[in-house]
């Protein structure tokens, strides 16, 4: 991205040319991949023209002025629909824009369009989009992961240089891993949730998805920062991109939780991640075994909390004020008919589960219990970061699965086994590609750090990325 910024600065390329390039690419490949729900050609070109005009006057808004971006469709934008890939909001236009969109615009970046996702971000394959399935650019018979599958596929297919996704239990990192792109779930409170259509408010974060760790870091620095409209936003949330990173990792300690390499992990994924860990060690990092014993409960805990909060967050879609309404003779019937028609199967399933776990008679056994376990899981990580700088794990147990392969919702939920921990504990976590399996599918490695230590993640990530690239070029470890 720094290269692109240089070309823009030195007028080797214009923003209009750049945007046109991506629009052409979308036209060429998106009928197969279907990463976008809405492409805003006119809007993007208009913004690109304005950017070129600013550059001509010598007044670019930022080094990234004119570089376009794709936005997940659960982030509110003005002038383009915000549907959350749901029939419920099929024709919904938000009257206000998300804080991250304001920041993107303040950096001068044209928006290419809105990307596909699992309906209301519930899912791990983008198969639960109410409109259509997105395909994995590495293998069109496979899913791109989810719920930010559209953003991941768009970046992987070269339809956008980078994108914004959202992550509640792994929704940036799992599709990132499946599509071979980098994605960061920031520390909870570092990126404003104003204008993010809520799934589970205590877990949701918006984050960058990009082709390299360095690009992800740049995009993160653009969107991170305090916003007083979000009461869970931290005062010192801003992030500055590190100018340079060292060429080794001396003095950095890396924790490897053995629990994450146990049963259920694909051997090829395990092998690839272990090779990367070896590489970290060769780069000078101190590798230590650690334990995160409560992670085995993370999926159950996550599901309890996410469904509970979602059942409340999605209750507002009742047909009264906006969105879909199915007319009926009385109000209660209208509610029922609207919600029956407007929501897809996974959304209904989670609303039912969430309503159940909050019901007075089950509240203690499920919801309160999950809150307690959440604390234990967070304590595990806190303990880990008293002795290591970053934790390294596989991002997902497997590489991308086939479309239609996972019919059992419980199987689908297991895709988040390694990622949900960071949402439950609020820590930052990044996925980056670390290899490919024999089927040619990308494998993702996850780096987790202490709260607000994205700098450590980006340091380790950038050094590792550099090393992996050299190996790829040299063909040898």
């Amino acid at each position, binding site marked *: 991205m720094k290269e692109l910024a240089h070309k823009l600065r030195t007028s080797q390329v214009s923003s209009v040319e750049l945007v046109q390039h991506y629009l052409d690419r979308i036209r060429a490949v998106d009928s197969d991949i279907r990463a976008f729900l809405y492409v805003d050609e006119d809007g993007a070109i208009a913004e690109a023209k304005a950017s070129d005009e600013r550059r001509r006057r010598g007044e670019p808004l930022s080094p990234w002025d004119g570089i376009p971006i794709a936005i997940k469709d659960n982030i509110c934008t003005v002038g383009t629909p915000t549907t959350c890939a749901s029939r419920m909001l099929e024709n919904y236009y938000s009257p206000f824009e998300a804080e991250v969109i304001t920041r993107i615009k303040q950096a001068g970046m044209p928006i290419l369009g809105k990307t596909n996702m699992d309906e209301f971000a519930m899912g791990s394959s983008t198969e639960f989009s109410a409109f259509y399935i997105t395909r994995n650019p590495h293998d069109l018979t496979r899913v791109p992961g989810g719920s930010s599958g559209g953003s991941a596929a768009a970046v992987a297919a070269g339809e956008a240089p980078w994108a914004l996704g959202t992550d509640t239990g792994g929704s940036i990192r799992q599709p990132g891993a499946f599509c071979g792109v980098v994605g960061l779930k920031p520390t909870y409170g570092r990126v404003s949730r104003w204008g993010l259509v809520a799934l589970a408010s205590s877990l949701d974060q918006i984050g960058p998805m990009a082709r390299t760790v360095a690009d992800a870091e740049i995009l993160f620095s653009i969107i991170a920062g305090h916003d007083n409209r979000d*009461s869970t936003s931290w005062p010192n949330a801003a992030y500055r991109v590190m100018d340079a990173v060292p060429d080794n990792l001396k003095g950095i300690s890396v924790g490897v939780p053995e629990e994450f390499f146990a049963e259920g992990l694909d051997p090829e994924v395990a092998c690839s991640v272990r090779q990367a860990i070896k590489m970290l060690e060769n780069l000078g990092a101190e590798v230590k075994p650690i334990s995160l014993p409560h992670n085995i409960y993370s999926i159950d805990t996550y599901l309890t909390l996410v469904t509970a909060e979602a059942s409340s967050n999605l209750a507002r879609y009742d047909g009264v004020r906006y969105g879909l309404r199915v007319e009926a003779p*009385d109000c209660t019937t209208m509610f029922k008919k609207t919600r029956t028609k407007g929501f897809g199967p996974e959304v209904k399933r989670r609303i039912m589960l969430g309503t159940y776990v*909050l019901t007075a008679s089950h509240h203690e056994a499920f919801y309160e219990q999950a809150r307690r376990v959440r604390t234990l899981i967070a304590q595990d990580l806190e303990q880990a970061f008293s002795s290591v700088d970053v934790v390294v794990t596989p991002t997902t147990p497997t590489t991308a699965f086939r479309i239609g392969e996972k019919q059992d919702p419980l199987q689908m939920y297991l895709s988040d086994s390694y990622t949900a921990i960071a949402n439950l504990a609020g820590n930052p976590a990044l996925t980056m590609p670390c290899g490919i399996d024999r089927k040619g599918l990308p494998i993702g490695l996850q780096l987790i750090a202490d709260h607000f230590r994205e700098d450590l993640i980006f340091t380790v990530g950038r050094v590792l990325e550099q090393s992996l690239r050299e190996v790829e070029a040299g063909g040898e470890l």
Partner: protein
Amino acid sequence: MGNYELTIGLEIHVELATKSKMFCGCATTFGAPPNTQCCPICLGLPGTLPLLNRTAVEYGIRAGLALNCRINPVSEFARKNYYYPDLPKAYQITQHDKPLAENGFLEYFLDGQLTKTTITRLHLEEEVGKSIHSGDSIIGSEYSSIDYNRAGIPLIEIVTAPEIASPKQARVFLEQLRLTLQYLGVSDCKMENGSLRCDANVSVRDIEGNPGEKVEIKNLNSFRALERALAYEGERQAVLLSQGKQVLRETRTWDEKAQKTVRMRLKAEAPDYRYFPEPDLPPLELEQVWIHEIASSLPELPLAREERFQKAYGLSEYDAGVLVRAPHLADVFEETVALGHSPKLTANWVLGDFARLARQGEVVSAQHFGELLELVSSGQINNNQGKAVLEEMFATGASPREIVQKKGLTIIQDLGFLKTVIQEALNEHSELVERYRSGEDRLLGFFVGQVMRRTGGRAEPVLVNKLLAEALQPGRNWEPHKE
């Protein structure tokens, strides 16, 4: 009701008088055109987040302190989930497990006895919108419209212990609570506008003193409705028990037209609100310094003022009570007394014509009012003139001296002139003079009236009476006095 003992607990909702709503910047003006005071936040649009209004918290703390509650250093917001068209997010942000304030009490005079009622808790929550049905209720209406202006206005909910023993006590308690909140300036507490609302829990103990089933009564929109509904409900439950029947645990509503309570739903049908902590708002942590600051800024509360008026000014319990219940009158009273006027005279005037005139709007300043009392007590004008002057003061805002001068309203000090006027009146009505002298005493009033008319009301009635009585004495050949 004989052997049955009534137990009443109240739940009071009070709209706080903040300028903006609880979680957004929208105005809270009552009576604005429908849906003109809304924004994406209070309409619950996707992607919005609540932002807590500090003044609402401050008002909540003020009320909590005035009700002698413990203010919790950390309280927590929660979501109360239910579907209703006027509830934009399908949940209400409220406080559940950890309320803002707990364990307080309110004292008040009940039949001259100082009485205390326990306040179990006080918590913050947001108001819902207002449904306007084309028919009587949502069921059976052809259509309903919703006004979201009210949605998101801050509320406090105050819950008493179930220890109120009579409908009258409930009313007196609620009146004292309203007065206290008005003194604090946290709410206008207008039941007719819905800014003060009350629900009641009622049960009766049987002859052996066993507690009965609790019945909740809603829709108590006035003090009268509260008292009547409680009396009706107590009677209803007592009759049921005396017939050996069961009181069902249920929610009833007060039907103002029929003057009775009617079942809304049985306890078993009560909604499960699925409370859980509001994830969009961190726990509300209060700095002790702030709480102290608020505590030291509390005004004198009605009960203390009532006691002080009796002790310091020697007012009767009745006068003190009436004054304190009308803060604008009590203020004028105090300011006037502070200028050196007699408390008794001031109270008489304030509670009389002043109170009547003040009902129409603004009150006059204590400065002017004191001036008026001075004119009357020094005999420069008489009582009736004083009343006329006060009326004029309220109407024009002019000072009493200006009014007296402009209207020439001074008392006639010239005794000779007065006697001349009297003689003229007697000469004109000589036959009536004869009738008076032959025993028709009541004619004296007629003569007084004649004299007052001829002097334009500027004579001192007591003096006129005295002079007339002298002049009319039988056998007396009365001559105008010449000086």
